[in-house]
């Protein structure tokens, strides 16, 4: 069996009195598309944030490629997120002051690439995601569907091993949602990247290789083929 790329074991996390995770454990295989399903407040986004090193659990451990992620310093976790992880959120994925091409180039610029090289690669990704026509537009000048495709380009431009997508189609109509998913899944599979996808939409979860239902901060059921 392939070694998992990401593992979480017995994660517990509370926000004040409110428990968000209570014993969640999960593995993500290399190249796997995993959907986390569950009602609002079930803990699925919190689990995604712990897997991505954005949140640190109160208890339990997260491992990425065999090494502890949850005990790294803030700086090292940030570095890992820049280099190995990509992110797509429902809202606010893009920096509003930057154009589409500048947004997509941002992860490369932060990793030390020169502006010209970074923007050339960003443009290639915008073309691939069929939004090259909005390259010079800012987030506020694009439609929701265009903005999410730009966000997908930004998530993938640096060649991440894992893309974390939290309700990536939640603000889109069904047709644009489908287009974003087709492009996200297609590009990630081509690169061999894993995807951890949080969604409450079964049609979106159906793009995954495996669906996991989160209830009350822990895994309630797993659906495999």
């Amino acid at each position, binding site marked *: 069996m392939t070694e998992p790329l990401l593992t979480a074991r017995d994660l517990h996390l509370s926000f004040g009195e409110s428990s968000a995770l209570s014993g969640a454990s999960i593995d993500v295989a290399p190249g796997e598309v995993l959907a986390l399903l569950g009602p609002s407040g079930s803990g699925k986004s919190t689990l995604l944030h712990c897997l991505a090193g954005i949140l640190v659990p109160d208890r339990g451990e997260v491992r990425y490629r065999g090494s502890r992620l949850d005990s790294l310093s803030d700086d090292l976790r940030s570095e890992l997120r820049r280099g190995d992880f990509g992110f797509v959120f429902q809202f606010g994925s893009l920096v509003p002051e930057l154009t589409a091409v500048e947004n997509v180039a941002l992860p490369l610029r932060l990793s030390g690439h020169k502006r010209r090289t970074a923007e050339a690669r960003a443009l290639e990704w915008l073309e691939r995601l069929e939004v090259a026509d909005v390259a010079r537009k800012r987030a506020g000048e694009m439609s929701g569907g265009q903005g999410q495709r730009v966000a997908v380009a930004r998530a993938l431009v640096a060649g991440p091993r894992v893309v974390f997508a939290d309700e990536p189609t939640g603000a889109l109509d069904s047709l644009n949602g489908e287009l974003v998913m087709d492009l996200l899944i297609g590009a990630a599979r081509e690169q061999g990247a894993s995807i951890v996808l949080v969604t409450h939409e079964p049609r979106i979860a159906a793009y995954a290789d495996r*669906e996991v239902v989160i209830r009350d901060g822990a895994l309630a059921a797993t659906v495999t083929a």
Partner: protein
Amino acid sequence: MSVPHTLLGLLEVRARHGYDLKRAYDAHFGQDRPLKPGQVYATLGRLERDGFVVVRGTGREGGPDRTTYAVTAEGVTDLDRWFAEPEGPAAYLQPVLFAKVVLALQSGRDAVQVLDAQRAEHLVTMRDLTARKSGADLDRVLGLDFALFHLEADLRWLEHTAARLERLAAEVAS
């Protein structure tokens, strides 16, 4: 809608005579399509022939003679199988799922498990349909979308029901 299993489920909760059974069925599941008395007795006859129910006794409560039926061990086994097996995703599934959930709660079974099994069945089918859309002609894609949207509607109902199970359990128990 599986009338035989629904009647069997009601008999598992407690032994009943035919009229009482019809009344319970109509109250929970037959608001739009109440059972005809003949249908109740014909179904009871078949369930008795198959060994799933037995006649518990005959009595009179100020009216005509009434035969009381009770579920047998074979009947409970058949119900166990019915609860455990998710329904094949199909159109107009909601009435049978609703019956399963209500009867699971009434008989003390795990209704969450019934919903989880059904969700899994639906998701596997939806995943297969989604994969088949890749590279297909548009008319085929639209046909697959039609099926996907209907399955999603079922799943939304499942999630909605799962979120209200506690209240439903309280109402079913009262």
